C-alpha cells in the first residue's frame, strides 16, 4: 500500500475528504441549531436529508428541473416542513420540557419517513444524472468533480448566510441567547416557541440544502439517512455544539478522517476510527475542537 503512496494521492484524499465533509458539515449545522434551543438530538435529520434528496430526484426525473435550480423549491419547502414539524409535534414536549418525548418523536419521525421512502422509492440505490454529473476538473493531477465543488460552494454559502442571520439580526441573536440559556432568554422576553420554530425551520432548511448536495455525489437509498444522521452527530461533536463554523469544520474533519481512514485502515475500520474520535472528543473536549467557550458567567 505504501508503494502507491504519493504526494498527489495524499492531496487527492484530503481534497475528497474536504469536499465530502462539507455535506456532513451542513447536516451538523442543522443538528446544532435544533440542539441549541431544544436540547434534543434530532435523530431524524439524516432521514430528512435523504427525503429531500428524493424530492430533488423527483423534480429532476418527473419535471426535468435541474437539481441546483430545484433548491429554490426544496429549501423553502423544507423550511415549511420544519415549521410544521415543530408546531404540530415538538411544541408540546418543549412546553413540558420533556426531552425523552422529543427524542422519541425524532426517532418516530425517522422510522416513519424512512419507511415511507422505502415504499415510495424502494431500497434500490439511486443517483441523479445530469449533463454535468461527470464533469471533472483536474488541476495539477487532482480530480475535483464539478458537482462536489458546487456542493462545497453551497455549504459555504449557507454557513455564511446563517452566520449573518445569527450575528446581525435580533431574531438570530435571540436564537443564540436561547441556545445558551433558555430560562435567561425568556427573562429578557424571548418567546421559546418562536426561537424553537426558527431553529427547526433553518435546521430542516439546511437538510434541504444537504439533500440536494447529496443528489449527484453518492448513490443513496432510504437507509442512508440514519448513517447520515450519525455522521452529522459525529461532525457536531467534533466541531462543538452551538457554533456554525465549528460544525462545518467538524464535518470537514470527519470527511478527512473517513477519506484518509478508509485508505489507510480500510472501509469498515474507518468508521470505527470516526466513532472512536467522536467518543474521545465527547469525553475530553465536549465543547468541540473548534470552539473557544467562555465558562458560565
Amino acid at each position, binding site marked *: 500500500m505504501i508503494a502507491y503512496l504519493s504526494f498527489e494521492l495524499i492531496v487527492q484524499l484530503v481534497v475528497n475528504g474536504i469536499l465530502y465533509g462539507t455535506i456532513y458539515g451542513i447536516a451538523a449545522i442543522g443538528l446544532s441549531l435544533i*440542539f441549541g434551543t431544544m*436540547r*434534543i*438530538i434530532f435523530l431524524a435529520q439524516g432521514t430528512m436529508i435523504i427525503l429531500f434528496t428524493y424530492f430533488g430526484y423527483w423534480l429532476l426525473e418527473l419535471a426535468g428541473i435541474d437539481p441546483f435550480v430545484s433548491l429554490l423549491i426544496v429549501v423553502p419547502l423544507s423550511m415549511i416542513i420544519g415549521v410544521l414539524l415543530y408546531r*404540530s*409535534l415538538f411544541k*408540546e*414536549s418543549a412546553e*413540558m420540557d*420533556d*426531552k*425523552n*418525548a422529543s*427524542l*422519541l*418523536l425524532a*426517532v*418516530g*419521525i*425517522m*422510522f*416513519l*419517513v*424512512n*419507511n*415511507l421512502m*422505502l*415504499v415510495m422509492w424502494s431500497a434500490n440505490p439511486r443517483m441523479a444524472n445530469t449533463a454535468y454529473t461527470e464533469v471533472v476538473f483536474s488541476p495539477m493531477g487532482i480530480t475535483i468533480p464539478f458537482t462536489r465543488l458546487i456542493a462545497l460552494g453551497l455549504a459555504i454559502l449557507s454557513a455564511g448566510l446563517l452566520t449573518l442571520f445569527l450575528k446581525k439580526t435580533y431574531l438570530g441573536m435571540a436564537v443564540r441567547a436561547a441556545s445558551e440559556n433558555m430560562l435567561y432568554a425568556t427573562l429578557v422576553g424571548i418567546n421559546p416557541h418562536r426561537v424553537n420554530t426558527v431553529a427547526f425551520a433553518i435546521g430542516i432548511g439546511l437538510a434541504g440544502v444537504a439533500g440536494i448536495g447529496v443528489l449527484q455525489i453518492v448513490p443513496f437509498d432510504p437507509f442512508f439517512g*440514519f448513517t447520515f444522521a*450519525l455522521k452529522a*452527530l*459525529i461532525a457536531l*461533536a467534533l466541531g462543538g455544539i452551538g457554533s456554525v463554523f465549528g460544525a462545518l469544520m467538524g464535518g470537514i474533519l470527519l470527511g478527512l478522517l473517513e477519506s484518509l481512514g478508509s485508505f489507510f485502515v480500510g472501509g*469498515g*475500520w474507518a*468508521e*470505527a476510527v470516526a*466513532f*472512536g474520535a*467522536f*467518543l474521545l472528543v*465527547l*469525553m*475530553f473536549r*465536549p465543547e468541540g475542537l473548534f470552539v473557544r467557550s467562555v465558562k458560565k458567567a
Partner: protein
Amino acid sequence: MKDMKTFYTGLVALIVLGLIVVPFSVNVERSYLIYFLFMAFIYVVIAQGWNVVGGYAGQISLGQHAFFGLGAYTTAMFWVHGLLGTGADYYFNPLLMILSGIVPAIVAIIVGIPLLSRLRGDYFALGSLGLGEIIRVFFVKGGDITGAQDGLHLPSGGYESMLPYYFVGLLLAVLATVGVYFIMRSRIGMAFRAINEDEVSASSHGINILYYKILAFAVGAFFTGVAGSLYGIYIFHVNPDSVLNINYGLYPILMCVLGGSATIFGPVIGSFFMAGVFVIAEQHFPMIHPIISGALIVLVMRFMPTGIVGLKSRLQRD
C-alpha cells in the same frame, strides 16, 4: 394501600398463570399468538434493562443494541467454536445464557468507566450511540471469529418445538420484572432514583455517583445480553444486521416511554403493546408495517408522552 398491593400481586400471578396455560390451548407450532408472546417476552427483558439505566437511573442509553448483539454473539461464538467443551449441550444451556449476559455487563463496566465519568445527559446518549456503532464495526470486521458480515450460523438441528422458547422467554420476562422490582426497593434502587433526581444532592448525601451509574449500565447490559442470547438461539443466524440492529437500541426506549418509564409494569405494558402492533402490522400490512409503527410512535409521543401508566395519573390530576 395493603389491599391494593395484594390485589396487584394477585393480578400479576393470574396473568402469569394465564400465560403458562396459553401454549396448551393453541397449536404452539403454528400459532401467531405464541410468536407474538415470545417476541413480547424478549421485548420485556430488554425494556426492563433500559428501564433500569434510562428510566430509573436517568442515563439515556442509545446503545443497548450493542449489548443485545454482544449477548447473541457470545452465545453464537461459544456454540460455533465449541468453547464450552465438545460434549456440552449448547441448546438453551443456562450457563451459556447467563454468560451471554455477563459478557455485555463486563463490556458495560469497561466502557462505562470512561463514558459515565465524563459524559452527562445528552452527551452520554450520544456517546452510547457511538459505542453501539463501534461494537458493530468490530463484529463486521471480526473475520472468522465473528463470521464478518455474514455472521455465524448455529446448528439448527436441535430445534423441535417453539415450546421451550416460549417458556424460557416467559421465565426471563418474569425474572427481569421481578428483578427490577427488588432492585428498585433496595438501597441500590434508592441510589439510582437519587441520581436521576439530582446528581449534586445525591453525591452530597454520600452516594458514589459513578459507581451506581456503572452498576445501572451493567445491570441493563446484563438483561439485554440475556435477551440477545435467547433471540440468537431463536433465529439460528447471528449477524450484524439482525442482532446489532439499532432497532434493538430504540425499541426498549420506545416501549419504556410508551408504557411509562421508571415504573415496574410500564415497560411490560409497552412491550406487549408494541409487539402486538408489530405482529398485527406485519401480518395484515406487510408492506407498510414499519410506517404504521413509526406513525404510532409519533402519535403516542405527541399525545401521551408520559406513557400508558402515566396517562392514568394525568387523568386523575386533570
